[in-house]
């Protein structure tokens, strides 16, 4: 079961990824800091190692030089301590040698010494082994002693750790062999504490780390500002372009300086200028044209009214005319009427084009509205012997719509259905759900093919120009119906198959201004239960449709 915590974590990750993807600045700074860190780490690591090596080497050379001198002076002292008689006071010599060694070794950090007898010798006398105070003999390893005992005149050295109170210091032990007359071979060990070197090194490393961190920080900060400087104008351009796209045509970018950014700004502004000019020009043209259509339509109305009245006066008196004149009066009458309808449609279209349409919303019962429209079309349907049926599972409430427009859409769809219905039944479906209301007008007539379907909402398009029309369509009906649906925030859809018929479906939001989701009626709608209206030649198609549900 998903707990809320991983969800929160995932959303945080998601947010970070989003920021990463969207912020060029963040990406640039992060990448710069990352590479700087790698570079600085490599460089300071190299510096640290090479400084350490140098420091130790220098110190070792110094120590070896001292030890060599100390060994030489001790040996000389022992040698010169032999009296004329060939005897030697080894203890006194030892004392003196130790003093001499101390004088020679003045290394910082101090040194300690040990004079040890090489084991396994038989001599006239033995000299006491000597150790500096506090020297822990364990720092002198057996291997070193073995090497020194071999007495080949070479100084041997070994890096060791010197335990010192609470800490362990790095140290260096240098061993050499001494030949004490009459007392045999002794080994001189000088133990140097090189803590000072370590301290210097620590300090250097600490400085390097701090310096590196400061450097990385500085570079990150510099990158941030540089990127901001460079991206700022780009971002401004992007925002301005966005506003331009939203239709705020007077948006411009400030032009400063002579650099590439200023060039971008100038080019951008030139583009915006030209865009604005062209759009304004087009809008003006379009306005002039719409105005012209509207004016022409209005100007036509007054003479048309006179013609209409005159025609009607003549038409009413046609009984008194000769048959030819009477027929002329009839033709005048019907064609003036047709002209009127066209003019009205043209005006309605020009109003939509000009965006001068206002909804006159009132609570309307859709089912009642459909019933009224069905009554209106019944005489025509009877003429074509098309049965009219209403299937209304829903829609029995007052919806906020412009009843005049919905009625007009419905009349248009019903007129089309009668015209193309081939005398077969016409079924009107009305249904509603929580968000939307829908009316579908289904005929079982000719139907349309793909190419016709594509053009069905075009202005002045007719499915078959040669077909006789009874409803006096102007070719603008469906274009106006589409606009009527859209002005409600709804839509008009069509389904059609050649030979199976056509279905137009009007879907409107139940409350004004709300979005419609799925239409409450399927397209084409489910067949009425008795199945009597099923076209007899499409069983496979029906099965497919039922499979979908």
């Amino acid at each position, binding site marked *: 079961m998903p707990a809320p915590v991983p969800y929160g974590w995932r959303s945080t990750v998601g947010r970070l990824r989003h920021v990463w993807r969207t912020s060029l600045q963040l990406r640039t700074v992060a990448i710069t800091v990352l590479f700087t860190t790698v570079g600085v780490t490599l460089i300071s690591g190299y510096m640290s190692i090479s400084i350490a090596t140098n420091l130790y080497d220098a110190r070792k050379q110094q120590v070896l030089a001292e030890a060599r001198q100390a060994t030489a002076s001790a040996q000389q002292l022992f040698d010169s301590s032999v009296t004329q008689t060939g005897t030697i006071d080894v203890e006194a010599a030892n004392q003196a040698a130790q003093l001499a060694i101390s004088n020679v070794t003045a290394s910082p950090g101090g040194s300690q010494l040990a004079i040890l007898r090489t084991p396994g010798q038989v001599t006239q006398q033995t000299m006491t082994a000597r150790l500096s105070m506090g020297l822990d003999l364990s720092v002198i390893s057996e291997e070193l002693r073995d090497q020194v005992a071999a007495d080949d005149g070479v100084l041997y050295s070994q890096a060791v750790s010197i335990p010192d109170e609470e800490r362990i210091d790095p140290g260096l032990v240098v061993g050499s062999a001494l030949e004490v007359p009459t007392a045999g071979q002794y080994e001189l060990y000088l133990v140097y504490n090189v803590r000072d070197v370590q301290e210097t090194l620590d300090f250097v490393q600490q400085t390097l780390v701090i310096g590196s961190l400061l450097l990385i920080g500085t570079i990150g900060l510099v990158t941030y500002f540089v990127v901001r400087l460079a991206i700022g104008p780009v971002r401004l351009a992007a925002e301005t372009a966005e506003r331009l796209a939203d239709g705020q045509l007077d948006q411009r970018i400030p032009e400063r300086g002579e650099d590439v950014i200023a060039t971008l700004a100038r080019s951008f502004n030139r583009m915006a200028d030209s865009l604005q000019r062209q759009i304004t020009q087009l809008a003006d043209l379009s306005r002039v044209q719409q105005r012209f259509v509207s004016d022409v339509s*209005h100007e036509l*109305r*007054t003479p*048309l009214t*006179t013609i*209409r009245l*005159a025609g009607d*006066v003549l038409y009413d008196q046609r009984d008194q005319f000769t048959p030819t004149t009477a027929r002329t009066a009839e033709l005048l009458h019907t064609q003036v009427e047709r002209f*009127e309808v066209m003019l009205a449609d043209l005006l309605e279209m020009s109003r939509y084009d000009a965006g001068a349409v206002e909804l006159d919303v009132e609570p309307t019962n859709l089912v009642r509205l459909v019933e009224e429209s069905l009554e209106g079309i019944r005489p025509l349907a009877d003429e074509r012997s098309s049965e009219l049926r209403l299937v209304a599972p829903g829609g029995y409430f007052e919806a906020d719509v412009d009843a005049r427009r919905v009625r007009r859409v419905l009349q248009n769809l019903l007129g089309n259905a009668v015209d193309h219905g081939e005398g077969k039944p016409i079924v009107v479906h009305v249904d509603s759900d929580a968000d939307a209301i829908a009316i579908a007008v289904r005929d079982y007539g000719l139907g349309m093919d793909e190419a016709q379907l594509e053009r069905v909402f075009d202005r002045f398009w007719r499915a078959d120009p040669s077909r006789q029309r009874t409803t006096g369509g102007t070719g603008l009906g469906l274009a106006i119906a589409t606009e009527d649906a859209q002005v409600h925030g709804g839509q008009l859809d069509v389904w059609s198959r050649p030979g199976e018929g056509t279905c137009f479906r009007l879907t409107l939001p139940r409350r004004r201004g709300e979005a419609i989701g799925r239409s409450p009626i399927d397209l084409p709608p489910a067949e009425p239960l008795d199945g009597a209206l099923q076209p007899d030649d499409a069983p496979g198609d029906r099965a497919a449709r039922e499979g979908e549900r």
Partner: protein
Amino acid sequence: MTARILVVDDDTALAEMIGIVLGAEGFETHFSYDGEAALDAFAELKPDLVLLDLMLPGLDGIAVCARIRETSGTPIIMLTAKSDASDVVDGLESGADDYVVKPFNPKELVARIRTRLRPTPDSSVETLRIGDLLINVTGHEVTRDAQQISLTPLEFDLLLALALKPNQVFTREMLLEQVWGYHYKADTRLVNVHVQRLRAKVELDPDNPAIVMTVRGVGYRAGASTSP
């Protein structure tokens, strides 16, 4: 007595044609071709009804309508080439009783004129109460506390229709049929605008009506009558 109709239209051919149509129906017609002349002719002729084109040179139809309404409740039917919402509403708000959109058919025009000229239907009662108003049916008078309120014949008909059936809720369509004589779907803005005009005259507080009540989603009904 033949009704006298003043036709105001700057298109002389249309005016003449309307004259022929109305003459055939037995009306007496007079013509004016601009706004100023129409006001003079109105004062001189005292017509029973005015057919008024909205688009006139000089003083336009809406101004003429408003000027006539200042002095008289004579029925005014607008002729308009525009069915656009704003034009029609402007015309109705300036006091026109009804409107006809060009091109209209002669029967429609005559029907509109006859409705406006017909006398108020006979009523068995002489006085009615609606809210705190007293309606004198035969005298065509409406009073509040003996103070007369002047209404146009149309406004009187509208108020009377509501007052005659105080318990009934009238849809806009019912009122269109009863008061305007429309037997088919017509423009419900006619009702809305005239209810507003009526309220402005008879309500003490038009924003909070007590005489012509709105029934949301249905229409209007008369306010309960109260004794003065």
